[in-house]
């Protein structure tokens, strides 16, 4: 069977919309187009009903109550609202008082949509500890405990990492936070919809999720805000009409919200089967690559990670040429190669992986429609590309001759 090219193995970046999601959304563009804020006619009521159903679908996927779901434009906004809105609400001293406003704990391999709000808060007088994971990339409750202080007001740790898929000790960190009465937020963008989630059992106060990572539309997401034990309050970032209980003003994105709701419902039904199938395909891909090529390493924890993705570094080949050799496959590389500056991934560097291996790493993430034929094609393409580039690589020759390339005095340029 032939595969359709180019093929998409970058589902951690974004997913296609499930056609069932699109179908659910369509009537809300044209027929049921009302503003859910319109309280005095049936157009508004119908829209509100649709939003309410979506709220239940989202809540149900994460074990929450529908009243605890705040719709946003995606995880970036959810993270900003949770972190900035939470810190400003639970501050120990007001802005401009000159006194320390409170301590926040996060991790240094979090997504930029967590790191940058934390950096903003630092500028505003909060103190932030950036935990460093071990080589397996996991943040443990023990690490958080070690960083806790009397003035800690907020902990924000992602549930699963977007580059390496490793899974942090969220229920345990949540338990610790609850014991210490510290607000706990998790960026669950990569986790929700792929793994069973229960915000009550998992001790989460605030949780970010995004539509476009779970076969829903882009530009819509949600923030779970706990209402009981404790009742979490936030200072809104966006002010106006007071929608979403005042947490997030602005006319609701009804079509997007309906799509997000449907996507959550489908994930609840299909994630177990998807996970099992994709886990097997991922293992096949990984096993083939690691058995057919020498000097390759799988990054992150070998078991404690999401089933549908893998991050692999290839020694003695350069990242950009590797991507070029695999141009029929859409995937991510470990070098955020933006025009002139070749910056290796800070996540991989955070695991202690050297610049050279970080540059030559690939993140492959499978999705609901990934087939075994595609994986077979990807295996042949990647193995072939690495073999070809190694045939070209003077470094691989040296390695084979037993020369330690780290001992060579390279002329810097």
């Amino acid at each position: 069977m032939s595969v359709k090219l180019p093929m998409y193995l970058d589902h951690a970046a974004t997913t296609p919309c499930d056609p069932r999601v699109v179908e659910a959304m369509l009537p809300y563009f044209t027929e049921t187009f009302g503003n859910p804020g319109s309280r005095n006619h049936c157009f508004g009521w119908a829209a509100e009903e649709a939003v309410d159903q979506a709220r239940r679908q989202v809540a149900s996927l994460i074990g929450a109550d529908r009243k605890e779901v705040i719709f946003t434009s995606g995880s970036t906004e959810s993270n900003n609202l949770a972190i900035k809105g939470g810190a400003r609400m639970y501050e120990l001293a007001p802005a401009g008082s000159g006194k320390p406003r409170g301590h926040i704990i996060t991790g240094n391999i979090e997504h930029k949509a967590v790191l940058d709000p934390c950096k903003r808060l630092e500028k505003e007088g909060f103190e932030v500890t950036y935990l460093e994971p071990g080589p397996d990339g996991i943040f443990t409750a023990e690490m958080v405990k070690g960083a806790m202080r009397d003035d800690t007001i907020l902990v924000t740790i992602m549930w699963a990492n977007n580059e390496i898929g490793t899974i942090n000790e969220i229920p345990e960190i949540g338990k610790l936070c609850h014991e210490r009465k510290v607000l706990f937020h998790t960026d669950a963008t990569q986790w929700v919809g792929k793994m069973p989630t229960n915000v009550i059992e998992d001790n989460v106060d605030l949780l970010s999720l995004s539509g476009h990572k779970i076969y829903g539309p882009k530009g819509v997401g949600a923030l779970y805000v706990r209402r009981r034990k404790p009742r979490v309050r936030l200072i809104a970032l966006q002010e106006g009409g007071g929608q979403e209980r005042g947490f997030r003003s602005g006319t609701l994105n009804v079509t997007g919200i309906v799509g997000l709701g449907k996507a959550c419902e489908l994930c609840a039904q299909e994630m177990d089967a998807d996970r099992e199938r994709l886990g097997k395909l991922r293992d096949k891909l990984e096993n083939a690559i690691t058995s057919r090529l020498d000097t390759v390493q799988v990054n992150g924890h070998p078991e404690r990670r999401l089933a549908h993705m893998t991050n692999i570094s290839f020694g003695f080949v350069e990242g950009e040429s590797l991507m070029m050799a695999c141009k029929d496959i859409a995937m991510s590389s470990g070098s955020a190669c933006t025009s002139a500056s070749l910056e290796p991934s800070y996540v991989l560097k955070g695991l202690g992986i050297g610049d050279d291996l970080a540059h030559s790493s690939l993140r492959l993430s499978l999705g609901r429609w990934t087939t075994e034929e595609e994986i077979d094609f990807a295996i042949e393409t990647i193995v072939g590309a690495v073999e070809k580039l190694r045939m070209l690589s003077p470094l691989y020759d040296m390695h084979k001759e037993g020369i330690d390339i780290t001992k060579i005095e390279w002329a810097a340029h």
Partner: protein
Amino acid sequence: MAYSGKVVDHYEHPRNVGNFGTTSEVKERPDIGVGLVGAPECGDVMQLQIKVNQDTGVIEDARFKCFGCGSAIASSSLATEWLKGKSIDEGLQIKNTEIVEELSLPPVKIHCSVLAEDAIRAAIADYQEKQQKQQ
């Protein structure tokens, strides 16, 4: 990034890949000059070897290996093509700007052509040093 047709051609069909022996073997060969430039952490390393007719001073053959992006591979592949049949002096005349022009390299890839020129000079310098030692 989009690559020019010539870069893609050299990348997909690199010319004169290889070497004239292992690192220790070529070290003993007075007719072979080796240039190894760049650094792994900078993302490109080029190895260029030239085989010179010691009577005529003509570069009879050239080989390369390259760890680097498509433009670096193409630049070193092109360098081997241009070196073959040239005298040592002619080889030294090759300028990185000519490589840029031939391959239509964008500004962010000019360093690849500079590296190729460095590799040519290093290989020729290595050959000349070996010749001097012989005398």
